[in-house]
Structure formats: structure tokens, C-alpha cells
């Protein structure tokens, strides 16, 4: 037996023994996810136990070094672990911007003190992070951001406004792009800082979305004090860190959408079959096409991850995955809405699980906007992969 097979058997045995039955069912709504953090209230004892056990294994962040709360697994082992979790339908124990976004950037750019301070609480789900990138005047053109950080010797004073800050009202800390110099080109003079959302002068106001939920906020920063030890990387040179983090964010957004139930089953259940074929022949063709694309896309995720080394980013190919994955996901949800007809349109009822279908459909529209729009990803591919002039 290869080492990988041995690991698979160990993981399987451990998961069988430790994953509570309740955590082996599909999440019924976005409210079922475990985000951790100081303010988080567990939905059930099982959710809490599942997190604690996975934390003890280092499996909330399997590839991180053990000293920071990980298990030091290789990328291949991580894939095996995820496969084994999927096999028993185990829920993700911890959803976290700290894991998906900040962690990789801290591992690459953080100093020893910063890693030791911030990584373990992320791994344990104790500190929840939010992302302070976008501003009212800086969306796709992120580098034109204006939030200002003034040098006060051992600390900065930060003033400005962030927007679309997902979960700012629930997060404990923020990783934030600020301007420390505005004399040069726009990509220069950006710094990457970390601070506590409980700091004086931080105010997060939720914004209501088309899905009816309010997962993101306007975040106002007024004379917020940020200690210099919380500057990640070099002053003025935060842009490359910001971009590195975005490649990880994009991989996550692009790939994180495997539905529990195939589209065609949902459609067959909803519309029924005639002579063994889906009652709507036009929809049938589109579903077949989308499912073939999904198969090929999932293979591509695996292929690109296998090509990259553990922990390394995929570079510009993360834009390809983000673009394709999110557009595909939007297509799938459109087809699901087609398949579920007026039932899918129900907004408030127990029967519809509080409008889960319609709300999820609306949420997918943000996939091709958050983390850089589809158009921006296409620009990046043109510039960095195809090397087209002027891109």
C-alpha cells in the first residue's frame, strides 16, 4: 500500500469515528455554516464538537505547518482528506476568510511574530476575519484606493471608507488595504495592515442585498489606531500581497460550488419524465451540456492543483478558474430556476426552506463580481497569459 493509501485508510477511520451524524447531512441554508470567531453561536452541539475535533487533528487547515495549527499535509494528502470527507458527506467544519485568504498571505509574507500571533487562532476558528479592499471609488480599479494611513511613529492613524466588506459586522479582525503614500504611481504606496474590528473608530453598517440577506457592509474608519507590528510585508508595497491573496480568493470562489445533487436529478424530480426523457426537451439539452462542462471544469480544478505545488498559488490561471467556475455556476442556477418553476420562486415559507432556491440563485450573481469581476479576470488572462498588448 502506498503512503497515500495508508493515509486514506487512516483518514477514513478517523472521520467515521469522529464526524457526528448531524454533520453528515447537506446544509439546508447558508445559515448552517460554521464561521467561528468571538461572536459566533454554534447551531448545535454537534457543530461545536465537529469543529473541536477537526481543530485537534489540524484538519481545518490541513496543509499548514503543525506549529500554526495545521497538520502539515501535502497537497495530495489534502485532496485525499477532502475526498474522504465528501464520501461521508461531511460538512466543512469551518468557513473562514482567514483560512481561504489571509492565511496563505501570512504564511508567505508574515514575519515569525505575526504568523505565531494570527495563524493559530484562524486554524482554531477563534478569530474571524473580514476583507477591507473595495472602496466606493475603488472596485475593479482597486489600486486607486484612498483610505489613508498616516505615519505616527510606532503606529498609523487610518481614515477612510471601505465598502462591500463581507461580514464586517460579525468579524473580529480585518485585513485592510490602506494608502501610505500618494506621491507615486497608484500601485505604489499601498500597505497591507491588520487591525481589530473592536478598535475605536471602526463602524460597520450592513447593506441589504437582492437576496434579502445582509452579508456585507459599509465600513467607516475614523482615526483608527493601527500598530506598526500589524503591517504585513513592507510599507508601500502591499499591492503584491493584495494580489497574491486575490489569487487564493479566486480559486476558492471559482471552485467552491459543487452541488450536493446533480442538476438533472433536481429537474427530473420537478418536471418528471416522458418516455424516459425530461419533459422539457430544450432544458434537457442545456442541462446535459452544463453537466458535461461541470465534469470538465472539476477535472481542470484538480489538474491545476496537481500541477501547482502544495500551498503555491496558481498565478494567473486562478483567474481562468474563477471566471469559468463562476459563470458556470450562474448558468447552473439559471437552469435550476428553470427546472423548479414557480416553486423556485417562493420567497418566504417553510416549504421552500425560506426561499432557499431563489436566494441562492440571486447570491450566485455576485460570484462573477466578488474577488474581481469576470471582465477583470478576462483582462488578467489577456495580459498575463496571452500577453496581448495594452491589456
Amino acid at each position, binding site marked *: 500500500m502506498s503512503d497515500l493509501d495508508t493515509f486514506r485508510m487512516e483518514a477514513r477511520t478517523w472521520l467515521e469515528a469522529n464526524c457526528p451524524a448531524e454533520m453528515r447531512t447537506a446544509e439546508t441554508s447558508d445559515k448552517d455554516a460554521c464561521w467561528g470567531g468571538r461572536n459566533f453561536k454554534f447551531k448545535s452541539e454537534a457543530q461545536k464538537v465537529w469543529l473541536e475535533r477537526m481543530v485537534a487533528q489540524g484538519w481545518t487547515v490541513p496543509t499548514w505547518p503543525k506549529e500554526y495549527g495545521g497538520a502539515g499535509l501535502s497537497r495530495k494528502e489534502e485532496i485525499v482528506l477532502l475526498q474522504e470527507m465528501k464520501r461521508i458527506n461531511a460538512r466543512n467544519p469551518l468557513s473562514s476568510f482567514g483560512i481561504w485568504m489571509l492565511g496563505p498571505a501570512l504564511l508567505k509574507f508574515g514575519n515569525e511574530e505575526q504568523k505565531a500571533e494570527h495563524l493559530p487562532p484562524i486554524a482554531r476558528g477563534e478569530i474571524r476575519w473580514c476583507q477591507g479592499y473595495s472602496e466606493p471609488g475603488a472596485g475593479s480599479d482597486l489600486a486607486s484606493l484612498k483610505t489613508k494611513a498616516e505615519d505616527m511613529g510606532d503606529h498609523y492613524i487610518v481614515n477612510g471608507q471601505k465598502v462591500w466588506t463581507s461580514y464586517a459586522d460579525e468579524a473580529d479582525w480585518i485585513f485592510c488595504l490602506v494608502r501610505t503614500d500618494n506621491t507615486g504611481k497608484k500601485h505604489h504606496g499601498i500597505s497591507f495592515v491588520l487591525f481589530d474590528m473592536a478598535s475605536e473608530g471602526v463602524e460597520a453598517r450592513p447593506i441589504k442585498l437582492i437576496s434579502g440577506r445582509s452579508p456585507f457592509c459599509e465600513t467607516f474608519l475614523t482615526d483608527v489606531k493601527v500598530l506598526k507590528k500589524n503591517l504585513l510585508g513592507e510599507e508601500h508595497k502591499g499591492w503584491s500581497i493584495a494580489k497574491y491573496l486575490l489569487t487564493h480568493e479566486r480559486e476558492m470562489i471559482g471552485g467552491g460550488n459543487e452541488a450536493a445533487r446533480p442538476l*438533472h436529478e433536481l429537474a427530473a424530480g420537478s418536471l418528471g419524465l416522458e418516455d*424516459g426523457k425530461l419533459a422539457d426537451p430544450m432544458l434537457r439539452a442545456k442541462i446535459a451540456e452544463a453537466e458535461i462542462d461541470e465534469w*470538465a471544469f472539476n*477535472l481542470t480544478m484538480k489538474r491545476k492543483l496537481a500541477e501547482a505545488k502544495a500551498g503555491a498559488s496558481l498565478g494567473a490561471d486562478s483567474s481562468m478558474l474563477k471566471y469559468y467556475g463562476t459563470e458556470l455556476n450562474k448558468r447552473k442556477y439559471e437552469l435550476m430556476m428553470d427546472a423548479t418553476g414557480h416553486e423556485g420562486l417562493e420567497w418566504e415559507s417553510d416549504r421552500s426552506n425560506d426561499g432557499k432556491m431563489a436566494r441562492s440563485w440571486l447570491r450566485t450573481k455576485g460570484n462573477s463580481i466578488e474577488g474581481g469581476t469576470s471582465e477583470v479576470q478576462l483582462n488578467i488572462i489577456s495580459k498575463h497569459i*496571452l500577453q496581448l498588448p495594452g491589456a
Partner: protein
Amino acid sequence: MALVLNEDEVMMRDMAQGFFAEKAPVKALRVLRDTQDETGFDRALWADMAGMGFAGIVVPEEHGGVDMGYLAAGLVAEQMGRNLTASPFLSTAILAATALKHGTDEQKSEWLPKIASGKAVIALALDEGVKHNPRGTATTAEPSGNGFKLNGSKAMVVDGHVADVMIVAARTSGEAGDAEGISLFLVDPKSKGVATERTIMVDSRNAARIDLDDVEVSGDALIGTLDGGMAVLDAVLTAGRGIAAAELLGAGAQAFEDTVAYIKERKQFGQIIGEFQALQHRSSHLYSELEIARSAVIGALTALDEGDEKASAYCAMAKAKLGSVAKLASQEGVQMHGGVGMTDEYDIGLFMKRIRVLQELMGDAHYHMNEFAVANEF
């Protein structure tokens, strides 16, 4: 499943890349076309390909092949797609070799070494109507003496007019539409009652119509079991679809790369047209589609080599995906070339033609989407 090429595979790809670029570039296809070459491919090239091991790439070593598997064969086909190389690779090295691996010991020892050494060209005569439809086979084979008598018409028989022997699908029971009741026969094209018409197709590559009029074959011409030809055909078409998908990948990728190179040079409005975002976004979209398509090809052929029970479905899915993606790459390619894209001088049109034919062979995207739905019970 390993989706990343290993060292041997990378070597194979590089070898094939150098070989076809040197020996059979697009120029060579133009020569065959312009001289109205009667064979439709270069026999010396086919002999060289046999020397490289390409002809026997899926033939077992005991029968003179190199037995490197379908993923390796796909790497070769991809390079042929990039160069629009005309050769009997698909008909003989893939379809016929796969069929004959299901043959009797005598059939294997007679034909497999000839395939591997490049000494025989073998054509699969399957399609009859205007679209691919194996179950629709209506050509009949009736018992006659101690053999069979074949009647019917075949179309789109790749390399049919130069074949040393043909593998003909014919109905021995049931009716058109049934999966059961089809049998496969080795038929000598020189037999009495065989009429062959070479059909020059849009891609300047080989195809033929074959009429069978009371063609007598002996009992030992049967490949596989009587009435059970569909099992062999499934294996043959699975391999064929996977390899055609690989060739489409090569052709689509080359059409795309030629296009990107062109838009980096051509100037209008005082600037390089590749600076226009409308063209950039379409190019980036194509890049993404081709990356997804590449995974489909590697995934399908790897599954086939590994004996995965879903390999047949995967090869069909890859064929569907590649048919659509390569078509898009060639169509966008012509459009982004502007007027010169419509000229015979530029290669992009040749890619569009070859891709159109390949996507039709062994089932187009619509065919395979339907099959996918049927297999998944919707």
C-alpha cells in the same frame, strides 16, 4: 487519476511534436490537396510513423506494437491536429486496432502486426445515414453457405478507398434502432459486389461511400460474437471518440494560437488590434474553454487506460466538449482574422474545415449530449 503528464508522456508528446512539425506540417496537407493525390496521405510518412511506434501505439507487444495506451495515442493525435496531418492513424491505428484486439487469435496475428508495421490500412464502415447512429445500422448480413452475404450502403468511411480491408457493421438480427443484432465483419474491398466511391470532403481528407451488393464473406470474417457487435463497437467508438477529441484539442489549440499571434501583429486605427478589449475578452474566453477541454481529454483517455467503468461515458463527454470548443476556436479564429481569414492562403480556414469534419465523426456534441442524458436517465 493522474491528470498531470508523467515523464514518459512528456517525452512522447515532445517527440510527436518535433516529428509532425518537421514531417507533416500544414503545408503537406496543401500539397496532397493541390496535387489531388490519389492516396490522400503520404505513404512514406505512414511508414515513418510506424517506425516511430505510432501505428502500433495501442497494439500489444506480442503482436509487434508498442502498447503505450490511449493517453499516449492522444498525445500523438493532438500533434496531428496541430499540423492537420493526413494519415490513417485514426482509422487504422485506433479504430481498427481496437476492434481487432477483440478478434480471434487468427485475426489478431494476421492483422495486428500489419497495423503496427504500417503495412495495412483498415477502414471502419459504420455510418449509413447523414448522421452518426450506430444503432441505426440497416446494412444486412444474411447467412449464406458457411458464411454471410452483405447488402447495404456505408458513408463517411474514413480511408475507405485505400483500405486493404474493411470492418463492416451489419445487422444479423433485429431491426434498425436495436442495439442488439449487429455484427462486425472483415471485408476485402476487392470482393465481388463492393463498390467504392472516394468522396472528397471539405477537409481534403479521406472518406468514401461503400455499396455492398451481395458481398460474400466467410464465417471466420466475424469479429466478436454474432449479434453482439455492439460490445466491440462500444470499445472501438470509445477509443475513437477519445482520440478524435485529442485531435480536436490540437486543432483547436493551434487555431487559437495562430489567431492570438495574428492579433498581436495586425494594426488598425493606428494600434495593434490585440489591444481592443472586445478581442481580448474573446481570446481569454477561448483560452479558458481550451483549458477545460484539455482536462476533458486527459481525464477521458486516462480513464480508458485505467479500465475505469465510466471511460466510455467520459470519452463521449470529451468528444462533445471538444467538438463545441474546437468549433468555437476556429469560428472565432476566422472572424478575428478579418478578410484574410476567408482566404485559402491563411491556414485558419483549413483548421475550420478539419474541425468541422472531426466534430461530426463518431457523433457530434448534440448526439453525445443526448446519449449523456439517456445514460443518466433524464
